[in-house]
Structure formats: structure tokens, C-alpha cells
């Protein structure tokens, strides 16, 4: 059996000390296998943002063991975490998080540049990825010349071009109208159908409905973990 992409054992994240102590994530154990499409749901304050930061290796847990592709990232330093994100995780953020005043193609190329891919090679991969999200003709537009839906598709292209082990989407449709929401979700479906592993954090049922497994958080703990087939 293949090593799971995400393997969390008893992950806890504590902010503050003493009286002010907040256990944002409290003993979460979660495994996501290769090719799975998992939605993490929860009301605000349920700890899903904190969990997303830990899954994305943007933050480290206070205690517990977290392995990405079998690599324990518990005691990695800043630069090593950057490397893990660069090699294994493709982010799609609610706020798109494209770099202003850089063309769509340059934005998509950026993570490949940090990886040390040659210029011609990454240009090719960036244009491929932009073609896949249907924005080949917008490659030289800057983010402020693109609609929200288009910006998010550029962000998806950026994640795709990295060929990550895990696509991690944090409320990807939170800032989009329903048409663009449908476009982006269709895109994620398509990516999933090609065998990619996707974790999507959302509070919208219609978004979660696309996933084949829904994990619900409440007060930092997993309240339910349901396969779509069982619903």
C-alpha cells in the first residue's frame, strides 16, 4: 500500500499560556490517502484554519506527529518547511494570493523558480498549466486585469504547475460569484479525476458536496468523518 499523503496523529495546537490558553486544534488524527478528495468543514472558530495551516506546513503543531508523504515535518526549520511546501503542496487561497504587477505566467512560474527549474522549462510548464485552466490567452495579463474567477484559476494553475502531492484549497470559492464558483469547482473535479489528492477547507455544503469524504471539525476536534458514498 502506498504511503498516505497526509498522516496526522494526535495533532494539537495551543495558543497562549495559562488562563489564556486556547487549544485551537485538540488531538486531531487524520489520514488522507493518495487520490482522495477530502473536504474539511466547520464553523468559524472550529479550528479549521489552524488545521489548514498545519496541513500546509505553514505552521507546526504544538504536539503530535505529522507526516507528508511519510516525511515527519515536526522538527524542520523554516527553510526546510519552505522546501516541503515548494515540493509537495499546491496552495489555493481564498484571496487568490497572486503577486501583483507580475503576469499570470510569471505567477505560475514562481514556485518552479524557487525549485530551481530552468527558465525555458518552467515557462513551458506554466503555459501548459494555464492552458489546462482555460487561460492560455491571459498568460501575459497582470492579476488586476483579470476577474476574480480568472485570478483563482491562475492560482489553480500555479498549484498544478508544481505537480504537488497535495492540492490544498482554503475556502477557494469564498470570494467568487456562483458562476466562477462552479468553474473553479469543476476544475478541481477534473484535477481530482486525474488522480490528484485534494484537501479543501470550506464552510459551504455545496462545495463539500463535491468531495468524496467530509471531515467536520468542532472546537478543535473531529466531530464526524463521513465518506460521500455513505451519505
Amino acid at each position, binding site marked *: 500500500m502506498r504511503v498516505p499523503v497526509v498522516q496526522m496523529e494526535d495533532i494539537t495546537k495551543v495558543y497562549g499560556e495559562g488562563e489564556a490558553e486556547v487549544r485551537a486544534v485538540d488531538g486531531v488524527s487524520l489520514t488522507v490517502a493518495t487520490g482522495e478528495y477530502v473536504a474539511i468543514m466547520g464553523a468559524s472558530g472550529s479550528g479549521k484554519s489552524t488545521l489548514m495551516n498545519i496541513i500546509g506546513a505553514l505552521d507546526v503543531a504544538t504536539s503530535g506527529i505529522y507526516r507528508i508523504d511519510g516525511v515527519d515535518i515536526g522538527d524542520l526549520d523554516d527553510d526546510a518547511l*519552505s522546501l516541503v*511546501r*515548494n515540493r509537495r503542496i499546491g496552495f489555493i487561497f481564498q484571496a487568490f494570493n497572486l503577486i501583483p504587477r507580475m503576469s499570470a505566467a510569471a505567477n505560475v512560474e514562481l514556485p518552479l523558480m524557487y525549485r530551481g527549474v530552468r527558465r525555458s522549462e518552467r515557462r513551458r510548464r506554466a503555459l501548459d498549466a494555464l492552458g489546462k485552466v482555460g487561460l492560455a490567452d491571459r498568460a501575459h495579463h497582470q492579476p488586476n486585469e483579470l476577474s476574480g474567477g480568472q485570478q483563482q484559476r491562475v492560482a489553480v494553475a500555479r498549484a498544478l504547475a508544481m505537480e504537488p502531492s497535495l492540492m490544498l484549497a482554503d475556502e477557494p470559492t469564498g470570494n467568487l460569484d456562483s458562476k466562477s464558483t462552479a468553474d473553479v469547482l469543476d476544475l478541481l473535479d477534473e484535477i481530482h479525476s486525474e488522480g490528484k489528492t485534494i484537501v479543501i477547507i470550506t464552510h459551504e455544503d455545496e462545495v463539500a458536496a463535491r468531495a468524496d469524504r467530509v471531515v467536520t471539525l468542532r472546537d478543535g476536534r473531529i466531530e464526524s468523518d463521513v465518506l460521500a458514498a455513505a451519505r
Partner: protein
Amino acid sequence: MIFIEALRSGWQAILANRLRSILTTLGIMIGVAAVIILVAFGQGASNSVTSSIQSLGSNLLTVTAENPNRGGEIVNPSIQDLTVEDAAALNDPVAAPDVAGAAPEKRAAVTCTIGDLSHSTQMIGTWPAYFEITNSPVAAGAYFSNADELSARRIVVIGSTVAEELFPDSDPLGKRISCNGAPFTVVGVQEEKGASFTNPDDIVIAPITAVENSITGYGAVSSISVQATSPETTDLAEEQVIAILDDRHGTQEGTRDFEVFNQASLLETANTALGVFTALLGAVGAISLLVGGIGITNIMLVSVTERTREIGIRKAIGASRRFILLQFLLEATVLSLFGATAGVGIAILIAQVEVAGISPSVVPISVVGAYVISVAIGLFFGSYPAKRAASLRPIEALRHE
């Protein structure tokens, strides 16, 4: 590889904020231009002083009489004057091999007239060798000769100032002027020497015998001008002159009744003083360069704050600390280099202008130095903001609006 990519990223950021980049560059530009221009003016002043000292005769020694009796205490009871014979004794190729020539000078304040025009000036009675010794070519006419000197002919070579005063619109050659009542015929006009501490062109030069006959009477000479064979042998010639005169006057260190004044050491002293002056000007320029550097820190800090989110994105998708650090450092250095280039350009333009009679001379080392220092400034003043950027934590940076 990472260097080129970081440079490219930094360059994009510079282009993205053109106005701010230009304003930051301005600070360094002014600093660099100030250093180069001020040093150039210092060098220009130094050059002008050096050349006016050299125009007096670069390897010239002047011997003057000196009273060694200090504070009423009689050190040497038998002070001897400098004489024409002393001057003759210095023209000795055996005892003074490094002396090219020596000539006595007998100075007298005279008033020279021609027609209604009158001019007070200084008359020098000397030998023909004087012209070569003091580097004083004639612009028109001729020098007087040894024969003229022997026969005490009343002829003069006049300085250009005297020529202008007495012959405002006629040719002085062959005219007869009257100096303190004695008639002299003008045979030559000295080439203009230009401004110095005293005006070397306000002078009339005549055979020493003629001056003694008609104006000063016989006796002591005012000074003896000695020319060394080359600037390098000036010090040797000085020693030889002292030895000969000590021998003739029966003096030694402490009781000497003459003093040898060395043009080369004057030049050295003047250069040292001007070097200090130039360094001072450079320091003033360096202060503005420092202010420019602080401007870079300031702007880069603003830039880091403003681009916190961008830095967060870059780190989230895998930029290492090193890359962010390098990007911001290079950004600061590139800005600084652009400022230096503009500053050098402006300095070279301004250095074409002559101010207060000083033509500035751009010192190549100050240009090279300005570049090196501006790179150092970029690295130094950029390092704090760059470190701040590199150590931003991605989740906090991403939350930044």
C-alpha cells in the same frame, strides 16, 4: 542561479515602484555627486597652487641673509652679507655638481615713468642666468647678455604688468623709461606668469651692475637664486649651497647668517595642507552619502511593510529565507548602483565648470571609490530591511492586509 533569479525579482520590484525607486536613487546620487565634486574641487585647488609654485621654478632654491642673533643674544658677532662673490662661488661644478646655476638678486623699489605714465614696481638687478634659473622666458625682445652686464648697460626686461601699465597701447621694445630718475632702455618683455602669492609680472629686471651704478649703490645683494639640475636633486643642491656658503662665511649650523629656502619643500607643505583640505571636503560629501544610505534603509523598510503579503505568498509557495534576503539586498544594491552611476554622470558634468578660478579635476579613484562604497551602502543599509523580510512568518504575512 539563485543570484540571477533573485536579481530579476528585485529588478521587477524596482520597476513596479518607479517613482519611489527614483526618489531613493536620488539620495545616493546626490551623495556620490557631492563626494566626487568636492574632491574634484579640492584636487583642482591643489593643482592650481602646485602649478603656480612650479611656475616660480620647480627646482629653485633661494638664499637670503638671516640674522642668527636670537633674543638679543649674540650668536655670531661677525655677520656677513650675501655678496655677488657668494653667488659666483656657487657656480662651481666641482663643489656644487647639482647646482645648475646661481644668480644674485639686488632688489629695489622703484618708480618708473614714461611720458605722463608712472608705475611703482620692483627692480631686480641680476645676471643673465637669472632668466633661466627662475624659469622666466621673454615673450618679446631678448634678455640682456653677459657683455651688457659687464658694461653695466642700462637696459631692462619688464614684466607683463609693467608693460601694460607703462605701454597700454604701444610696443615697449626699444623705448626708454626712467626708473628713479635713471634712464633704462626696454629690450624685452617677460612672458606672463600669472597669479601667485605675489604678482610675479610686476617687475623690471636689469643687469646688476647697472642697478648698483644708478640706483642702489654697491654692497650686499638681497638674495641669491639657485637652480638645481633637477627637482630630484634639489635637496642635494641645497646641501652643497650650504656647505659652500658656510665655508665662505665661516659659519655652521646655529650661527649661520644665511638661509636657504627650498621651493620643493614649499610645494610639499602646500600639498600636505591641500590634502587635508580635500579630505575635509570628501568627508562633507561622505555625510550626504550616509544620509542617502539611511534613505535606502527607510524606503526598503516601507517597501518590506508594504509587501509583507507578497513576501508571505512567496514564502508559502516555497521561497527560502536566503532567496528573500538576497532579493531585498540586491534590490537595495541595484538602487544604490543606479544612484552612483547617475551621481558620477552629474559630477563629471558639473566638474566641467570653473568656479572661483579653480577648474575641478575629477580624481579617478574617487569615482571607483564611489561605486565600491555605494555597493557597500546598498548591502549595509539594505541588510536590516532584508533580514526583516526574510524572517517574516508566512501565516502572519499572509494575514497582513
